[in-house]
């Protein structure tokens, strides 16, 4: 009994750590590229998107894990989508109520969390097979890894595009902003460079 508990705890910890780096959704799995490219113009929207995605991921993983023994195979994708859509709608309403400016900034990208393949992917790969504890740890790890990836990309872009971080100037006033970093082209360039750097470190291992 104690062995089982220990095994379950170590499995949860393993799932949590994997999402942070070894299986990071952005740098290792290239999941959820739509928000990654679209909302990383600045740190604030990137952080908000990361938190909203993590909220949906955790709630969806809990519900899917609780239902895993009664979901019939033919209903699997339908049930995942229904669950995810519910929590995305709730996240959208919460943002509109408590962070209205950020909700306006993120625009359609909050409802689009529904089609973020990271969430449906974790529901399929982890929550539908593992107990609740492991599913929550997995969602936390993946959510934090996703938020970390968004924030790293947003830091590079905001710094180069405006010389700012969290809208506070950090580079000298003479800094000539790289406007391209605000545009989709800048998002692709920054993401490509960061993927190159992360691959370099992984290959070294």
């Amino acid at each position: 009994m104690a062995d089982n508990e220990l095994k379950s705890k170590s499995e949860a910890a393993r799932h949590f750590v994997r999402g942070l780096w070894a299986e990071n959704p952005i740098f290792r799995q290239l999941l959820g590229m739509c928000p990654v490219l679209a909302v990383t113009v600045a740190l604030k929207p990137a952080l908000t998107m990361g938190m909203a995605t993590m909220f949906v991921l955790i709630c969806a993983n809990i519900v899917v894990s609780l239902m895993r023994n009664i979901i019939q195979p033919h209903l699997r994708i339908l049930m995942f989508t229904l669950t995810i859509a519910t929590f995305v709608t709730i996240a959208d309403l919460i943002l509109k109520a408590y962070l209205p400016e950020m909700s306006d900034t993120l625009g359609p990208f909050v409802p689009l969390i529904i089609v973020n393949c990271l969430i449906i992917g974790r529901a399929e790969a982890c929550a539908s097979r593992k107990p609740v504890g492991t599913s929550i740890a997995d969602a936390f790890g993946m959510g934090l890894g996703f938020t970390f990836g968004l924030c790293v990309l947003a830091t590079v872009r905001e710094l180069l595009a405006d010389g700012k971080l969290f809208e506070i100037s950090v580079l000298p006033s003479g800094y000539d902003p790289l406007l391209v970093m605000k545009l989709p082209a800048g998002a692709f360039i920054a993401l490509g460079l960061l993927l190159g750097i992360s691959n370099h470190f992984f290959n070294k291992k």
Partner: protein
Amino acid sequence: MLNEFMKKSWLALVSALCFGLLVSAVNMALAGKIKQNKIDKRDGMLEKLFGQDCSFEGVKAEGAAEDAEPIYFVAKKGGQVDGYALIWTGPGFAENIDLLVGFNAGLDMLKGFAVMKSAETPGFGDQITLEDKEGKYRPDLYYKDRFINKPIDKVLVRADDNIADKHLKDEQVVTISGSTVTSEAVIVIVNGAKKQMVKLLNK
């Protein structure tokens, strides 16, 4: 057949009902706050256009429901009408742009506009939202300021590129370099708002 259907899909039906109730409950709990946020945002923009010493009165369409949105706003200062404003929408470069367009009390000049909603390109089209932090009038820097005191009886048009300021006619507006589509979209929306405001007040 019904038994077979229920056996195969009871979980989807029960979940849909439960999730529907959950979303409805959250919506009921937050709807008031979301509506108030929208009103606060609109009122803040009306204050920016007309000044904090003005009070605002929303005018609803004839026979409109009690909770209907006003079709235009009357700004009053010391009991006297100081101007009018209405929200007008039109297509931008990315998606629709919602502008709150203000007019003076005589309905012959623009007070300017405030951007209620836009998703224009960062660094280019989104310059329509920029303004001086201390509220100074800087038409050389800010697109918004180029609309202040423009005449209402003339249709606003885009000024030719590189036109010198001294040759600029009243109805001409210098666009933002690199975002002609957004600049022109704003001109079209403001023209639409002018037409509508005149129509509403002449009724």
